[in-house]
């Protein structure tokens, strides 16, 4: 079970090899760091846009 799980997760995100980098002019960033930054932006926007429902609190 553990080996099968490791196989599936390893197939999705292979962290064993050398890192992947994106070059754009003088900007160079690893894919891992770019993914984290994108996730933070998505989380930030979601935190602002998704309504927060309160349970009958005082206004």
């Amino acid at each position: 079970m553990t080996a099968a799980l490791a196989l599936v997760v390893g197939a999705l995100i292979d962290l064993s090899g050398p890192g992947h980098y994106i070059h754009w002019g003088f900007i160079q960033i690893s894919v891992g760091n770019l993914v984290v930054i994108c996730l933070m932006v998505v989380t930030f926007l979601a935190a602002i846009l998704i309504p927060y429902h309160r349970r009958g609190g005082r206004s």
Partner: protein
Amino acid sequence: MTTVDRNDVEAGVGLPEDADQWTAKIRGFLMRNLPPGRLIPDRQPSYMASWIYIFGALTMGALAMVILSGGLLSLEGPTWWHTSTVGLFVNSLHLWSVELFFFFMVVHLWGKFFMAAWRGNRALTWMTGVITFMASIGAGLTGYLSQTNFDSQWISTQAKDGINAVGIGAFFNVLNFGQMLMWHIMILPLAVVAITILHVLLVRTRGIVPPIELEPADPATAATGGEG
């Protein structure tokens, strides 16, 4: 001999002749600025009904996990966290709680930046947050240097050039494992936790910053964030 009413003592009311004592002054300062209802409030302002306000608490939750997992790692040492399965698990727990700590802290920072959260006499709250962020980056760097693996060797040899370029390499030697470990497990965690506590107490003292459109014109109301 003056008799003291026990109820007065428990309510923090001292005798007039003791008013000059440092204990009375500190108690008076705390009672004025952090009365129990403001220190641990039951309710928050209605404008806090947004997900963006949870990221400060999430950051502190991740910090608690960082301290707990780091404490476990310090009990057993590198041989344990490199070789045993439980050690590897706790090592990963430490890494990923740090990842979440920075993730939540950055979202918290963005939220507070766009709220201009330094308004209403909250500059010190903002600055303590900035200092905590800086101390956390230092804790992160010294943590990478304390892994005792090829990654830490590579990072230390890269970091030394930057540290030497700013002229502090003689005092903060990233190639000195013992010094970096002490910074990582003693000075910087103490700084991060202590300044975080101060940050939270300042938030409780000044109140949560209201949205810009709800900012009260009266500065006296602004000091408490218009809670109610």
